[in-house]
C-alpha cells in the first residue's frame, strides 16, 4: 500500500504562467520517457523480480517516480493557470484546451496520449534492468532538451532537480545489475533466467 505525503519532493512555485512551456513539459508526465511510464515500469517489474534487494530498489525508485510525476503535473498546472482566451490562442495551447480545458492529462509533447507500449516488463532480470538503465538515460536526455528550451529559473530549478534524479537512479540500477550478475554464472549470465527458472545461479 501507499501513504500520501502532503508535499512535493522539491518545491514548484512558478510566478509566471507560460502555456507554451507547459506543452513541452507535459511530455515528462505522459510522454514516451516520462515519469508516469517510469513509475509504472518499475512498479510492474517488481512481481517477476526474484531478488529481495532489487524488489526493494524497484519499489523505492518506482515510488519516487510517482513523486516526480506529481512535480511535473504541478508545473503544468501552474503554467496554465489564469489564462485568457487570447493567451490560449496566441500560445498554441488552444488545441490542448479544447479537449482538456486546464486539466492535466497524460500526453506527450506531440499530443500522443500515454501508452503502455512505452514500458516493458519482460520477466527476465538482465533484460528488465537494461530497460530501466535505458529509461533513465532517455528521461535525462529529455530533461536536457527541456533545459535547452526554457530560461525561466522558476521552471528550470525543478527540472534540474529531476534531471539529477535520473542520474542517481541510473547509478542505482547499474549497481543492481551488478548485484544480479554476481548471483549468476559469470561465464554465461544468460545460461538461465532467474525470474523463471527455479534452479538458477550459484
Amino acid at each position: 500500500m501507499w501513504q500520501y505525503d502532503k508535499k512535493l519532493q522539491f518545491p514548484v512555485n512558478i510566478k509566471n504562467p507560460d502555456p507554451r512551456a507547459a506543452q513541452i513539459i507535459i511530455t515528462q508526465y505522459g510522454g514516451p520517457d516520462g515519469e508516469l511510464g517510469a513509475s509504472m515500469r518499475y512498479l510492474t517489474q517488481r512481481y517477476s523480480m526474484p531478488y529481495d534487494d532489487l524488489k526493494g530498489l524497484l519499489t523505492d525508485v518506482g515510488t519516487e517516480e510517482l513523486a516526480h510525476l506529481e512535480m511535473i503535473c504541478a508545473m503544468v498546472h501552474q503554467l496554465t493557470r489564469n489564462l485568457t482566451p487570447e493567451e490560449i490562442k496566441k500560445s498554441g495551447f488552444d488545441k490542448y484546451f479544447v479537449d482538456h480545458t486546464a486539466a492535466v492529462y497524460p500526453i506527450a509533447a506531440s499530443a500522443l496520449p500515454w501508452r503502455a507500449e512505452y514500458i516493458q516488463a519482460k520477466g527476465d532480470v538482465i533484460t528488465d534492468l537494461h530497460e530501466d538503465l535505458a529509461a533513465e538515460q532517455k528521461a535525462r536526455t529529455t530533461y536536457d532538451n527541456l533545459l535547452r528550451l526554457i530560461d525561466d529559473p522558476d521552471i528550470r530549478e525543478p527540472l534540474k532537480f529531476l534531471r539529477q534524479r535520473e542520474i542517481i537512479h541510473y547509478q542505482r540500477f547499474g549497481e543492481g545489475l551488478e548485484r544480479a550478475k554476481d548471483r549468476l554464472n559469470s561465464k554465461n549470465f544468460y545460461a538461465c533466467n532467474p525470474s523463471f527458472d527455479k534452479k538458477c545461479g550459484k
Partner: protein
Amino acid sequence: MTPKCKLVKYIDALDFALYEMVLYLDTHPHDKKALAAFEEYKRRRKEAIKEYERNYGQYLRMAKKTKPDGSWNWIKGPWPWEYEKEEA
C-alpha cells in the same frame, strides 16, 4: 525567509536525504557508514520536528490529525501542486 519557513525547509531537506539513503542502502545493505548516516538523519528529523512543535504547535502538514480547534486538518489547503505567493 521566516525562521518557521526555514525549519520546514530543513525538515524537507532531511526527508530528501533519508530517501536518498534508502535507495543507496538497497544496493549497499552492509555499508556501515551509510547505515549510520541514515540513523543520524532520522535522529535530526525527530529533533527538528520537536523544535517545530515547541515553537509553532503540532507539525500538522502531513498528519491526518485533529487540529487543536477540534476539526479535521487533512483537507486544509493549499495542496502541494498549488502556486503559493509567499511560503507560510
